[in-house]
Protein backbone atom coordinates (compact mmCIF):
# COMPACT_ATOMS: atom_id res chain seq x y z
CA UNK A 1 0.00 0.00 0.00
CA UNK A 2 2.84 2.35 0.87
CA UNK A 3 4.59 1.66 -2.44
CA UNK A 4 1.44 2.19 -4.46
CA UNK A 5 0.63 5.39 -2.60
CA UNK A 6 4.12 6.68 -3.40
CA UNK A 7 3.87 5.65 -7.06
CA UNK A 8 0.46 7.25 -7.44
CA UNK A 9 1.47 10.32 -5.45
CA UNK A 10 -1.16 9.77 -2.77
CA UNK A 11 -0.86 10.61 0.89
CA UNK A 12 -1.47 7.48 2.91
CA UNK A 13 -3.30 7.75 6.23
CA UNK A 14 -1.85 5.84 9.21
CA UNK A 15 -3.03 2.32 8.54
CA UNK A 16 -5.04 0.31 11.04
CA UNK A 17 -7.43 -2.62 10.80
CA UNK A 18 -10.41 -0.38 11.49
CA UNK A 19 -9.54 2.22 8.90
CA UNK A 20 -11.99 2.27 6.01
CA UNK A 21 -10.32 1.53 2.70
CA UNK A 22 -11.82 4.68 1.28
CA UNK A 23 -10.12 6.69 4.04
CA UNK A 24 -6.66 5.28 3.44
CA UNK A 25 -5.93 7.91 0.84
CA UNK A 26 -5.90 5.29 -1.91
CA UNK A 27 -8.42 5.76 -4.69
CA UNK A 28 -10.08 2.93 -6.59
CA UNK A 29 -7.28 2.87 -9.17
CA UNK A 30 -4.72 2.36 -6.38
CA UNK A 31 -6.79 -0.43 -4.84
CA UNK A 32 -7.21 -2.02 -8.26
CA UNK A 33 -3.43 -1.91 -8.71
CA UNK A 34 -2.99 -3.40 -5.22
CA UNK A 35 -5.37 -6.24 -6.07
CA UNK A 36 -3.55 -6.89 -9.36
CA UNK A 37 -0.17 -6.85 -7.57
CA UNK A 38 -1.35 -9.34 -4.94
CA UNK A 39 -2.67 -11.58 -7.69
CA UNK A 40 0.74 -11.46 -9.38
CA UNK A 41 2.71 -12.11 -6.19
CA UNK A 42 0.46 -14.50 -4.30
CA UNK A 43 -1.67 -15.94 -7.08
CA UNK A 44 -4.72 -14.88 -5.10
CA UNK A 45 -7.63 -12.80 -6.35
CA UNK A 46 -10.42 -13.43 -3.86
CA UNK A 47 -12.46 -10.47 -5.09
CA UNK A 48 -12.87 -12.20 -8.43
CA UNK A 49 -13.47 -15.63 -6.95
CA UNK A 50 -16.80 -17.19 -7.90
CA UNK A 51 -19.26 -17.09 -5.01
CA UNK A 52 -17.31 -14.46 -3.07
CA UNK A 53 -19.82 -11.84 -2.04
CA UNK A 54 -17.92 -10.03 0.69
CA UNK A 55 -16.47 -6.73 -0.33
CA UNK A 56 -13.90 -5.38 2.09
CA UNK A 57 -14.80 -2.13 3.77
CA UNK A 58 -11.86 -1.74 6.12
CA UNK A 59 -8.19 -2.51 5.85
CA UNK A 60 -8.79 -5.39 8.28
CA UNK A 61 -11.54 -6.80 6.03
CA UNK A 62 -9.20 -6.61 3.10
CA UNK A 63 -6.41 -8.48 4.90
CA UNK A 64 -8.83 -11.13 6.25
CA UNK A 65 -10.19 -11.72 2.75
CA UNK A 66 -6.71 -12.60 1.52
CA UNK A 67 -5.89 -14.62 4.65
CA UNK A 68 -9.05 -16.67 4.15
CA UNK A 69 -8.28 -17.15 0.49
CA UNK A 70 -4.80 -18.40 1.33
CA UNK A 71 -6.04 -21.10 3.71
Amino acid sequence: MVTIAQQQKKTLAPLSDDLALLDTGLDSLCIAILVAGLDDELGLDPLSAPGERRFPVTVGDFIRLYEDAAT
Partner: protein
Amino acid sequence: MPQPRRQSLRDLIAQRGISARRFIADVHTSLPLATLDAVGRLRGGAAPMQGRSVLIRTRRQLPAALAAIALDGVARRILLCPPDVTDGQLQPIMQYGEVDAVVTESDICTDEAEACAGRMQGIEHLGMPETALDTEWVLFTSGTSGIPKLVVHSLTSLTTPLGDGLGDDRDVWATFYDIRRYGGLQILLRALIGRGSMILSHGDEPVASFLSRLGTAGVTHVSGTPSHWRRALMSGAVGRIRPVYVRLSGEMVDQGILDRLHQTYPNAMIAHAFASSEAGVAFAVSDRLAGFPASILCAPPPAAQIRIEQGTLRIRSGCTATRYLGMPDRAIADGSGFVDTGDIVELSGGRYHFVGRREGVLNIGGLKVHPEEVEAVINQHSNVLMSCVYGCPNPITGVLVTADVVLHRLLGEKSHDFAITKSEIISACRDALVPYKVPVRVNVVSDISVLPSGKVARRHA
Protein backbone atom coordinates in the same frame (compact mmCIF):
# COMPACT_ATOMS: atom_id res chain seq x y z
CA MET B 1 -23.10 15.12 -73.34
CA PRO B 2 -21.96 11.58 -74.04
CA GLN B 3 -19.97 9.94 -71.27
CA PRO B 4 -16.37 9.14 -72.18
CA ARG B 5 -15.82 5.46 -72.86
CA ARG B 6 -14.97 3.61 -69.70
CA GLN B 7 -11.43 2.35 -69.81
CA SER B 8 -10.62 -1.05 -68.40
CA LEU B 9 -7.68 -1.69 -66.13
CA ARG B 10 -5.96 -3.36 -69.08
CA ASP B 11 -6.43 -0.16 -71.12
CA LEU B 12 -4.93 1.92 -68.32
CA ILE B 13 -1.93 -0.37 -67.99
CA ALA B 14 -1.33 -0.39 -71.73
CA GLN B 15 -1.61 3.40 -71.95
CA ARG B 16 1.32 3.83 -69.61
CA GLY B 17 3.54 1.79 -71.86
CA ILE B 18 4.73 -1.69 -71.09
CA SER B 19 8.47 -1.88 -71.32
CA ALA B 20 10.35 -5.17 -71.25
CA ARG B 21 11.65 -4.22 -67.83
CA ARG B 22 8.26 -4.49 -66.12
CA PHE B 23 7.02 -7.63 -64.36
CA ILE B 24 4.68 -9.01 -61.74
CA ALA B 25 6.13 -11.71 -59.52
CA ASP B 26 5.34 -13.92 -56.60
CA VAL B 27 7.39 -16.48 -54.72
CA HIS B 28 7.00 -19.02 -57.53
CA THR B 29 7.16 -17.11 -60.77
CA SER B 30 7.84 -13.81 -62.46
CA LEU B 31 5.73 -12.79 -65.43
CA PRO B 32 6.76 -10.03 -67.83
CA LEU B 33 3.96 -7.48 -68.20
CA ALA B 34 4.74 -7.08 -71.90
CA THR B 35 3.41 -10.56 -72.65
CA LEU B 36 1.08 -10.90 -69.69
CA ASP B 37 -2.21 -11.03 -71.61
CA ALA B 38 -4.32 -11.50 -68.49
CA VAL B 39 -7.45 -12.40 -70.44
CA GLY B 40 -5.52 -15.10 -72.26
CA ARG B 41 -4.75 -16.65 -68.89
CA LEU B 42 -8.40 -17.38 -68.15
CA ARG B 43 -8.54 -21.10 -68.94
CA GLY B 44 -12.26 -20.95 -69.59
CA GLY B 45 -11.99 -17.79 -71.64
CA ALA B 46 -13.69 -14.44 -71.11
CA ALA B 47 -17.12 -15.28 -72.52
CA PRO B 48 -18.47 -17.24 -69.53
CA MET B 49 -17.58 -14.35 -67.22
CA GLN B 50 -19.16 -11.54 -69.19
CA GLY B 51 -21.68 -9.57 -67.14
CA ARG B 52 -21.36 -11.92 -64.18
CA SER B 53 -20.70 -11.34 -60.50
CA VAL B 54 -17.45 -13.22 -60.01
CA LEU B 55 -15.90 -14.32 -56.73
CA ILE B 56 -12.13 -14.56 -57.10
CA ARG B 57 -11.04 -17.11 -54.55
CA THR B 58 -7.48 -18.31 -54.94
CA ARG B 59 -4.81 -19.35 -52.50
CA ARG B 60 -2.01 -17.35 -54.11
CA GLN B 61 -2.18 -13.65 -54.87
CA LEU B 62 -0.79 -13.83 -58.40
CA PRO B 63 -3.74 -15.73 -59.93
CA ALA B 64 -6.10 -13.36 -58.11
CA ALA B 65 -4.27 -10.35 -59.58
CA LEU B 66 -4.36 -11.85 -63.07
CA ALA B 67 -8.08 -12.65 -62.75
CA ALA B 68 -8.87 -9.12 -61.56
CA ILE B 69 -6.90 -7.59 -64.43
CA ALA B 70 -8.65 -9.90 -66.90
CA LEU B 71 -12.16 -9.43 -65.55
CA ASP B 72 -12.27 -5.66 -65.05
CA GLY B 73 -14.54 -4.37 -67.80
CA VAL B 74 -15.76 -7.90 -68.50
CA ALA B 75 -17.55 -8.93 -65.33
CA ARG B 76 -20.35 -6.94 -63.75
CA ARG B 77 -18.72 -7.33 -60.35
CA ILE B 78 -15.57 -8.89 -58.96
CA LEU B 79 -15.25 -9.87 -55.34
CA LEU B 80 -11.63 -10.14 -54.19
CA CYS B 81 -11.76 -12.79 -51.51
CA PRO B 82 -8.89 -12.65 -48.97
CA PRO B 83 -7.35 -16.01 -48.06
CA ASP B 84 -8.59 -16.03 -44.46
CA VAL B 85 -12.27 -16.09 -45.40
CA THR B 86 -13.67 -19.42 -44.25
CA ASP B 87 -16.05 -21.72 -46.09
CA GLY B 88 -18.66 -20.95 -43.43
CA GLN B 89 -18.47 -17.23 -44.23
CA LEU B 90 -18.80 -17.82 -47.95
CA GLN B 91 -22.49 -18.61 -48.13
CA PRO B 92 -23.79 -15.18 -47.07
CA ILE B 93 -21.01 -13.52 -49.08
CA MET B 94 -22.13 -15.36 -52.21
CA GLN B 95 -25.70 -14.36 -51.47
CA TYR B 96 -25.00 -10.67 -50.77
CA GLY B 97 -22.67 -10.49 -53.76
CA GLU B 98 -25.16 -12.28 -56.04
CA VAL B 99 -22.21 -14.37 -57.11
CA ASP B 100 -22.90 -16.40 -60.22
CA ALA B 101 -19.34 -17.39 -61.12
CA VAL B 102 -16.29 -18.36 -59.09
CA VAL B 103 -12.70 -18.19 -60.25
CA THR B 104 -10.27 -20.44 -58.41
CA GLU B 105 -6.60 -21.28 -58.75
CA SER B 106 -7.22 -23.86 -61.47
CA ASP B 107 -9.04 -21.34 -63.68
CA ILE B 108 -5.96 -19.13 -64.06
CA CYS B 109 -2.82 -20.00 -65.94
CA THR B 110 0.32 -18.70 -64.28
CA ASP B 111 2.57 -20.91 -66.36
CA GLU B 112 4.30 -18.96 -69.10
CA ALA B 113 4.58 -21.85 -71.60
CA GLU B 114 0.92 -22.78 -71.29
CA ALA B 115 -0.12 -19.15 -71.62
CA CYS B 116 1.89 -18.88 -74.83
CA ALA B 117 0.13 -21.94 -76.25
CA GLY B 118 -3.23 -20.46 -75.29
CA ARG B 119 -2.41 -17.22 -77.04
CA MET B 120 -1.80 -19.17 -80.26
CA GLN B 121 -5.45 -20.19 -80.20
CA GLY B 122 -6.87 -16.89 -79.05
CA ILE B 123 -10.19 -18.38 -78.07
CA GLU B 124 -10.02 -16.92 -74.59
CA HIS B 125 -10.64 -13.46 -75.98
CA LEU B 126 -13.92 -14.45 -77.63
CA GLY B 127 -16.85 -12.91 -75.81
CA MET B 128 -14.98 -9.80 -74.75
CA PRO B 129 -17.45 -6.89 -74.58
CA GLU B 130 -16.91 -4.15 -77.14
CA THR B 131 -17.37 -1.53 -74.44
CA ALA B 132 -15.87 -2.15 -71.05
CA LEU B 133 -18.46 -2.65 -68.32
CA ASP B 134 -18.17 -0.44 -65.26
CA THR B 135 -17.15 -3.37 -63.11
CA GLU B 136 -17.77 -3.11 -59.39
CA TRP B 137 -14.76 -4.04 -57.27
CA VAL B 138 -15.81 -5.53 -53.96
CA LEU B 139 -13.32 -5.57 -51.12
CA PHE B 140 -13.73 -7.36 -47.82
CA THR B 141 -13.06 -5.35 -44.71
CA SER B 142 -10.78 -6.99 -42.21
CA GLY B 143 -13.50 -8.02 -39.81
CA THR B 144 -12.33 -9.93 -36.77
CA SER B 145 -15.47 -11.96 -36.31
CA GLY B 146 -18.62 -12.78 -38.19
CA ILE B 147 -18.99 -11.94 -41.82
CA PRO B 148 -16.63 -9.41 -43.39
CA LYS B 149 -18.32 -6.28 -44.65
CA LEU B 150 -18.38 -6.12 -48.44
CA VAL B 151 -17.30 -2.70 -49.64
CA VAL B 152 -18.10 -1.66 -53.20
CA HIS B 153 -15.59 0.40 -55.16
CA SER B 154 -15.22 1.26 -58.81
CA LEU B 155 -12.00 1.25 -60.79
CA THR B 156 -12.24 5.06 -60.67
CA SER B 157 -12.50 5.24 -56.88
CA LEU B 158 -9.61 2.80 -56.56
CA THR B 159 -7.35 4.62 -59.00
CA THR B 160 -8.25 8.23 -58.19
CA PRO B 161 -5.63 8.40 -55.42
CA LEU B 162 -2.89 7.40 -57.80
CA GLY B 163 -2.66 10.64 -59.74
CA ASP B 164 -0.36 11.04 -62.70
CA GLY B 165 3.35 10.91 -63.25
CA LEU B 166 3.97 8.13 -60.78
CA GLY B 167 7.51 7.03 -61.33
CA ASP B 168 8.94 5.04 -64.17
CA ASP B 169 9.61 1.49 -65.27
CA ARG B 170 12.54 1.14 -62.88
CA ASP B 171 10.20 1.34 -59.90
CA VAL B 172 9.71 -2.03 -58.26
CA TRP B 173 6.86 -2.04 -55.78
CA ALA B 174 6.12 -4.50 -53.03
CA THR B 175 3.83 -4.69 -50.09
CA PHE B 176 3.56 -6.81 -47.00
CA TYR B 177 -0.20 -6.59 -47.49
CA ASP B 178 -2.18 -9.15 -49.39
CA ILE B 179 -3.35 -7.47 -52.60
CA ARG B 180 -6.89 -8.66 -51.88
CA ARG B 181 -7.10 -6.00 -49.17
CA TYR B 182 -7.49 -2.30 -49.81
CA GLY B 183 -3.94 -1.39 -48.74
CA GLY B 184 -2.43 -4.10 -50.93
CA LEU B 185 -4.65 -3.46 -53.92
CA GLN B 186 -3.63 0.20 -53.85
CA ILE B 187 0.00 -0.79 -54.22
CA LEU B 188 -0.73 -3.28 -57.01
CA LEU B 189 -2.63 -0.59 -58.93
CA ARG B 190 0.11 1.95 -58.27
CA ALA B 191 2.64 -0.44 -59.74
CA LEU B 192 0.52 -1.41 -62.74
CA ILE B 193 -0.78 2.03 -63.65
CA GLY B 194 2.29 3.89 -62.50
CA ARG B 195 4.63 2.17 -64.96
CA GLY B 196 6.33 0.01 -62.35
CA SER B 197 6.69 -3.66 -61.49
CA MET B 198 5.15 -5.54 -58.59
CA ILE B 199 6.36 -8.22 -56.20
CA LEU B 200 3.68 -10.01 -54.23
CA SER B 201 3.99 -11.34 -50.70
CA HIS B 202 3.14 -14.96 -50.02
CA GLY B 203 1.10 -16.42 -47.18
CA ASP B 204 3.39 -17.89 -44.55
CA GLU B 205 6.67 -16.86 -46.14
CA PRO B 206 9.01 -15.75 -43.34
CA VAL B 207 9.58 -12.00 -43.30
CA ALA B 208 13.34 -12.45 -43.75
CA SER B 209 12.78 -14.60 -46.86
CA PHE B 210 10.37 -12.05 -48.30
CA LEU B 211 12.88 -9.27 -47.71
CA SER B 212 15.59 -11.35 -49.38
CA ARG B 213 13.34 -11.89 -52.38
CA LEU B 214 12.62 -8.17 -52.54
CA GLY B 215 16.30 -7.32 -52.26
CA THR B 216 17.23 -9.73 -55.06
CA ALA B 217 14.55 -8.24 -57.31
CA GLY B 218 15.78 -4.71 -56.57
CA VAL B 219 12.69 -3.43 -54.81
CA THR B 220 12.45 0.35 -54.63
CA HIS B 221 9.02 1.06 -53.08
CA VAL B 222 7.67 -0.94 -50.12
CA SER B 223 4.48 -0.56 -48.15
CA GLY B 224 2.96 -2.13 -45.06
CA THR B 225 1.29 -1.45 -41.77
CA PRO B 226 3.40 -0.28 -38.81
CA SER B 227 3.03 -3.84 -37.48
CA HIS B 228 4.40 -5.24 -40.74
CA TRP B 229 7.36 -2.91 -40.51
CA ARG B 230 8.02 -3.72 -36.86
CA ARG B 231 8.12 -7.39 -37.80
CA ALA B 232 10.53 -6.56 -40.58
CA LEU B 233 12.75 -4.74 -38.09
CA MET B 234 12.53 -7.72 -35.73
CA SER B 235 13.56 -10.10 -38.51
CA GLY B 236 17.08 -8.71 -38.61
CA ALA B 237 16.82 -8.74 -42.41
CA VAL B 238 15.84 -5.14 -43.09
CA GLY B 239 19.30 -4.54 -44.53
CA ARG B 240 18.48 -6.82 -47.45
CA ILE B 241 16.47 -4.08 -49.12
CA ARG B 242 17.39 -0.50 -49.94
CA PRO B 243 14.06 1.15 -50.75
CA VAL B 244 13.83 4.75 -51.88
CA TYR B 245 10.23 4.90 -50.68
CA VAL B 246 8.78 3.41 -47.51
CA ARG B 247 5.07 3.68 -46.93
CA LEU B 248 2.99 2.96 -43.85
CA SER B 249 -0.77 2.76 -43.61
CA GLY B 250 -3.61 0.82 -42.05
CA GLU B 251 -2.77 1.48 -38.40
CA MET B 252 -1.84 4.42 -36.26
CA VAL B 253 1.74 5.47 -37.02
CA ASP B 254 3.74 6.55 -33.98
CA GLN B 255 6.95 8.53 -33.87
CA GLY B 256 8.94 5.49 -32.75
CA ILE B 257 8.37 3.52 -35.95
CA LEU B 258 8.98 6.58 -38.14
CA ASP B 259 12.29 7.26 -36.37
CA ARG B 260 13.40 3.62 -36.62
CA LEU B 261 12.59 3.39 -40.31
CA HIS B 262 14.45 6.63 -40.99
CA GLN B 263 17.40 5.31 -39.05
CA THR B 264 17.29 2.09 -41.07
CA TYR B 265 16.73 3.73 -44.46
CA PRO B 266 18.18 7.24 -44.11
CA ASN B 267 17.89 8.00 -47.82
CA ALA B 268 14.32 6.81 -48.28
CA MET B 269 11.24 8.96 -48.36
CA ILE B 270 9.10 7.72 -45.49
CA ALA B 271 5.41 8.41 -45.95
CA HIS B 272 2.46 7.45 -43.87
CA ALA B 273 -0.90 7.42 -45.54
CA PHE B 274 -4.33 7.52 -44.07
CA ALA B 275 -6.65 5.14 -45.84
CA SER B 276 -9.44 2.73 -45.11
CA SER B 277 -11.46 0.32 -47.22
CA GLU B 278 -14.48 2.59 -46.96
CA ALA B 279 -12.96 6.08 -47.09
CA GLY B 280 -10.23 5.23 -49.58
CA VAL B 281 -6.89 7.02 -49.50
CA ALA B 282 -7.33 10.39 -47.84
CA PHE B 283 -3.83 11.79 -47.59
CA ALA B 284 -0.18 10.89 -47.19
CA VAL B 285 2.32 12.70 -45.00
CA SER B 286 6.07 12.49 -45.60
CA ASP B 287 7.57 14.86 -43.04
CA ARG B 288 8.51 11.92 -40.79
CA LEU B 289 6.36 13.25 -37.98
CA ALA B 290 3.50 11.31 -36.45
CA GLY B 291 0.02 12.70 -37.09
CA PHE B 292 -0.78 15.21 -39.80
CA PRO B 293 -0.63 18.99 -40.09
CA ALA B 294 -3.90 20.78 -39.37
CA SER B 295 -3.44 22.64 -42.66
CA ILE B 296 -4.60 19.48 -44.46
CA LEU B 297 -8.11 20.40 -43.36
CA CYS B 298 -7.95 23.46 -45.60
CA ALA B 299 -6.63 21.76 -48.72
CA PRO B 300 -8.87 22.50 -51.71
CA PRO B 301 -10.31 19.78 -53.96
CA PRO B 302 -9.33 17.51 -55.62
CA ALA B 303 -7.57 16.73 -52.34
CA ALA B 304 -9.74 14.82 -49.92
CA GLN B 305 -11.95 17.03 -47.78
CA ILE B 306 -11.35 16.43 -44.10
CA ARG B 307 -13.42 17.33 -41.07
CA ILE B 308 -13.09 16.56 -37.40
CA GLU B 309 -16.48 16.03 -35.81
CA GLN B 310 -17.10 14.68 -32.34
CA GLY B 311 -13.40 13.99 -32.17
CA THR B 312 -13.29 11.64 -35.14
CA LEU B 313 -11.79 12.04 -38.57
CA ARG B 314 -14.32 12.41 -41.42
CA ILE B 315 -13.32 12.20 -45.05
CA ARG B 316 -14.95 13.01 -48.35
CA SER B 317 -13.18 12.30 -51.62
CA GLY B 318 -13.44 10.65 -54.99
CA CYS B 319 -11.83 7.56 -53.48
CA THR B 320 -14.73 6.73 -51.21
CA ALA B 321 -16.52 3.43 -51.62
CA THR B 322 -20.11 3.67 -52.79
CA ARG B 323 -21.93 1.18 -50.54
CA TYR B 324 -21.89 -2.07 -48.63
CA LEU B 325 -23.34 -5.18 -50.21
CA GLY B 326 -26.02 -6.89 -48.15
CA MET B 327 -26.39 -3.96 -45.77
CA PRO B 328 -28.95 -1.68 -47.45
CA ASP B 329 -29.64 0.22 -44.23
CA ARG B 330 -26.04 1.02 -43.51
CA ALA B 331 -24.57 3.96 -45.43
CA ILE B 332 -20.83 4.36 -45.92
CA ALA B 333 -21.00 8.15 -45.96
CA ASP B 334 -23.30 10.67 -44.30
CA GLY B 335 -25.70 12.91 -46.21
CA SER B 336 -22.83 15.26 -47.12
CA GLY B 337 -20.69 12.47 -48.46
CA PHE B 338 -18.32 12.33 -45.47
CA VAL B 339 -17.16 8.96 -44.15
CA ASP B 340 -16.74 8.72 -40.37
CA THR B 341 -13.51 6.77 -40.04
CA GLY B 342 -13.97 6.08 -36.31
CA ASP B 343 -10.38 7.26 -35.76
CA ILE B 344 -10.12 9.66 -32.86
CA VAL B 345 -7.71 12.57 -33.30
CA GLU B 346 -6.53 15.35 -31.03
CA LEU B 347 -5.05 18.70 -32.00
CA SER B 348 -1.72 19.61 -30.45
CA GLY B 349 0.78 22.17 -31.68
CA GLY B 350 -0.89 22.67 -35.06
CA ARG B 351 -0.94 18.95 -35.74
CA TYR B 352 -3.57 16.30 -35.38
CA HIS B 353 -2.49 13.10 -33.70
CA PHE B 354 -4.32 9.80 -33.80
CA VAL B 355 -5.14 8.64 -30.31
CA GLY B 356 -7.14 5.51 -31.02
CA ARG B 357 -10.20 3.86 -32.42
CA ARG B 358 -13.63 4.71 -31.11
CA GLU B 359 -14.63 1.07 -30.73
CA GLY B 360 -11.35 -0.06 -29.17
CA VAL B 361 -11.51 2.09 -26.10
CA LEU B 362 -10.77 0.54 -22.68
CA ASN B 363 -12.95 1.50 -19.77
CA ILE B 364 -10.93 1.82 -16.54
CA GLY B 365 -13.54 2.36 -13.88
CA GLY B 366 -15.45 4.71 -16.18
CA LEU B 367 -12.38 6.46 -17.57
CA LYS B 368 -11.51 5.92 -21.20
CA VAL B 369 -8.14 4.78 -22.49
CA HIS B 370 -7.22 4.29 -26.11
CA PRO B 371 -4.69 1.45 -26.35
CA GLU B 372 -2.94 3.20 -29.20
CA GLU B 373 -2.07 6.30 -27.19
CA VAL B 374 -0.36 4.15 -24.55
CA GLU B 375 1.40 2.10 -27.24
CA ALA B 376 2.67 5.32 -28.83
CA VAL B 377 4.44 6.20 -25.57
CA ILE B 378 5.79 2.68 -25.02
CA ASN B 379 7.04 2.44 -28.60
CA GLN B 380 9.19 5.51 -28.04
CA HIS B 381 11.41 3.47 -25.74
CA SER B 382 14.61 2.62 -27.56
CA ASN B 383 14.43 -1.05 -26.54
CA VAL B 384 10.86 -1.60 -27.64
CA LEU B 385 10.08 -2.80 -31.14
CA MET B 386 6.38 -3.38 -30.78
CA SER B 387 3.70 -3.25 -28.13
CA CYS B 388 0.10 -4.18 -27.63
CA VAL B 389 -1.99 -2.61 -24.90
CA TYR B 390 -5.16 -4.25 -23.68
CA GLY B 391 -7.41 -4.49 -20.67
CA CYS B 392 -6.77 -7.08 -18.00
CA PRO B 393 -9.83 -7.95 -15.89
CA ASN B 394 -9.84 -6.38 -12.45
CA PRO B 395 -12.55 -6.64 -9.80
CA ILE B 396 -12.23 -3.00 -8.75
CA THR B 397 -12.09 -1.03 -11.99
CA GLY B 398 -13.38 -3.59 -14.46
CA VAL B 399 -10.09 -3.67 -16.30
CA LEU B 400 -6.58 -2.31 -15.84
CA VAL B 401 -4.19 -1.29 -18.58
CA THR B 402 -1.75 -4.06 -19.46
CA ALA B 403 0.97 -4.03 -22.07
CA ASP B 404 2.78 -6.76 -23.95
CA VAL B 405 6.08 -5.59 -25.42
CA VAL B 406 8.55 -7.08 -27.86
CA LEU B 407 12.08 -5.94 -27.20
CA HIS B 408 14.74 -5.23 -29.76
CA ARG B 409 16.40 -8.53 -30.58
CA LEU B 410 19.77 -6.94 -31.26
CA LEU B 411 20.18 -6.22 -27.56
CA GLY B 412 20.37 -9.91 -26.79
CA GLU B 413 18.04 -11.28 -24.22
CA LYS B 414 20.71 -12.49 -21.85
CA SER B 415 22.56 -9.20 -21.65
CA HIS B 416 19.49 -7.13 -21.28
CA ASP B 417 17.93 -6.38 -17.97
CA PHE B 418 14.22 -6.73 -18.53
CA ALA B 419 13.44 -5.26 -15.12
CA ILE B 420 15.19 -2.01 -15.98
CA THR B 421 13.40 -1.76 -19.31
CA LYS B 422 10.03 -2.42 -17.69
CA SER B 423 10.71 0.19 -15.08
CA GLU B 424 11.77 2.70 -17.77
CA ILE B 425 8.63 1.99 -19.79
CA ILE B 426 6.38 2.55 -16.81
CA SER B 427 8.31 5.65 -15.86
CA ALA B 428 7.93 7.06 -19.40
CA CYS B 429 4.21 6.33 -19.28
CA ARG B 430 3.90 8.07 -15.91
CA ASP B 431 5.59 11.13 -17.36
CA ALA B 432 3.40 11.25 -20.45
CA LEU B 433 0.04 9.88 -19.36
CA VAL B 434 -2.50 10.35 -16.60
CA PRO B 435 -2.27 7.62 -13.92
CA TYR B 436 -5.15 5.43 -15.08
CA LYS B 437 -3.55 5.10 -18.53
CA VAL B 438 -0.24 3.82 -17.17
CA PRO B 439 0.14 0.05 -17.63
CA VAL B 440 -0.05 -1.84 -14.38
CA ARG B 441 1.57 -4.87 -15.95
CA VAL B 442 4.23 -4.91 -18.64
CA ASN B 443 4.89 -8.35 -20.06
CA VAL B 444 7.88 -9.07 -22.23
CA VAL B 445 6.80 -11.37 -25.06
CA SER B 446 8.66 -12.81 -28.02
CA ASP B 447 6.00 -11.85 -30.54
CA ILE B 448 2.73 -10.00 -30.87
CA SER B 449 0.03 -11.54 -32.97
CA VAL B 450 -0.74 -9.68 -36.19
CA LEU B 451 -3.95 -10.29 -38.12
CA PRO B 452 -3.91 -11.20 -41.82
CA SER B 453 -4.79 -7.55 -42.41
CA GLY B 454 -1.39 -6.58 -41.01
CA LYS B 455 -2.86 -4.99 -37.91
CA VAL B 456 -2.18 -5.90 -34.31
CA ALA B 457 -4.66 -8.51 -33.08
CA ARG B 458 -6.37 -6.67 -30.25
CA ARG B 459 -7.90 -8.62 -27.42
CA HIS B 460 -11.11 -6.63 -27.38
CA ALA B 461 -11.74 -7.69 -30.94
